[in-house]
């Protein structure tokens, strides 16, 4: 499958990464060689084979819905440089 520069730019935008033209070229070449090799997975017959999301069976674990003290707001805010009046401050959304 041919990988284009636009594919790389589109994926980068989705995951919030800015790439230089040089990086776009590099990652395009990397994608091409890696995905060409990885495409050999399609040689396997996986008809009716369920995907293994975990290596071992995992059961849902539930607990009583009882409120517990976690970290305090002050502790949580202490990890960030962008705070004001007891809140996190983020970039503009509109």
């Amino acid at each position, binding site marked *: 499958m041919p990988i284009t520069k636009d*594919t*790389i730019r589109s*994926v980068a935008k989705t995951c919030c*990464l*800015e790439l230089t033209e040089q990086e776009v070229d590099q990652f395009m070449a990397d*994608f091409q060689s*890696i995905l060409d090799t990885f495409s050999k*997975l399609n040689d396997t017959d996986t008809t009716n084979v369920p995907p293994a999301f975990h290596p071992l069976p995992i059961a849902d674990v539930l607990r009583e819905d009882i409120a517990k003290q976690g970290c305090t707001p002050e502790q949580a805010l202490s990890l960030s440089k962008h705070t004001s009046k007891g809140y*996190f401050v*983020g970039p503009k959304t509109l």
Partner: protein
Amino acid sequence: MRLTLKNSGTTMSNKAMLRNYINEIRQGNVSAEEALKKAITSAQSLNKKFHFFTTPTYDLAAKQAHDIQHMVQNHREPGTLAGVAVSVKDALCISGIESCAGSAILKGYKPLITATAVTKTINAGGCIIGKTAQDEFGFGGFSVNVGHEFPVPLNPHDTTRSCGGSSGGAACLTAAADFPHVAIAESTGGSIVNPAAFCGVVGLCPTYGRVSRFGLIDYANSLDKIGPVGKNVEDVALALSVMAGHDQNDATSSTLPVEDYAKHATANKIRVGVIKESFGEGSDEAVRENVRAAINKLADAGCKITEVTLPTTYTYGIPSYYLIAMSEASTNLSRYAGILYGASEPLAGGFRDYFSAVRTKHFGTEAKRRILLGTFARMTGWRDQYYTKALQVRQLIIKEYQHAFSTVDVLATPTMPFIAPKFSEIKDMTPLQNYMTDILTVGPNLAGLPHLSVPCAQAKGMPVGLLLTAPHFREDLLFHIGVMHEQA
């Protein structure tokens, strides 16, 4: 076996000195405070040569040693690891200690929590001497994909060569240490046994869920395992006994009881399956010969050796592993956006501009490559062909291992196909060539199987590792055969 380190000037012994040291501490014959003071002095000196620490925690270790000493003097139980220096891979959180998983995007992050494996180790008397170097978020097999301004650990056997990765700092320090020490490391696709083999020490990657992942900075949740690295099998078994067990903070941790691994299993005539594909032409001849010789010694010691074949695992393991690991990594790393913790920039522009600016500046090249590939593999139009397909192939691989274990007890292969490469050789490798070097380790990691690397020989003056893999939760069997190997 005795290995002399060419560069450190120290001689290390694979004899079980840890147990004797702990007994001396517990009986009050040796002062934990004095012992840790010596260990810290030595670690400081060795770190200047080999660069295994991202963040030393000497003050913390000294305080913990003081507490141990106080407990001993007051006839209180100091724990099964009393006074042992313990290093912790940077990806495991320690409350109040900078924990970055080797990434610049977490620079300055001092977590509010401590990883359960670390808490258990501290409660057992371990003294934390530092956070160890690694590839950024575990993205590599040579510990060279480190974040900006993070150290690249140098192999104590030859400083022009890699320690392996991603837990390179853990194995490096374990090999170099001339004081009682165990390391807490982490593996996603081989990151414990790979550096253990390259540095000539013992590494155990436990069954998925055997050790709680709470407090681990995730790479890929369905693959990550925390495990110990030590100078010999007994040290590693002792450390696992402390770390293992159910944790209500990790829903994937197993509720099966923890054995006293230091006692080892007793087993009659262990059936060892040698995986045919692991001795293919892609591996170094000297490595193949030395590992075959080690397996022959197991036969001399009473093991029954047969050949088994795992064609699906060895043909499709690499693409299956990397597509799953990158997909999970790309979702995990989406949380790093420069607001709540870690690296940040002055707020400017819209949210997309800001998040992109922070992530672009602080993620390394390999992290970006894996985020891009993982995001691509999960996108509509490609998901079935890559991500879902990889998960289905993983199912086939799990079944293939189950079939193999219907006829043998343990599987044996080389740990790595070659000895630790020189940094100059790594520089010339493409990303795909890098990924292909994990061919021997991705299988047991995909299937969540416990695997143990033990040093078995030297080739060209560098250590060679023998990899032993057992069915789920049979770490006891690995320790048993590991000790047999050490005594052979």
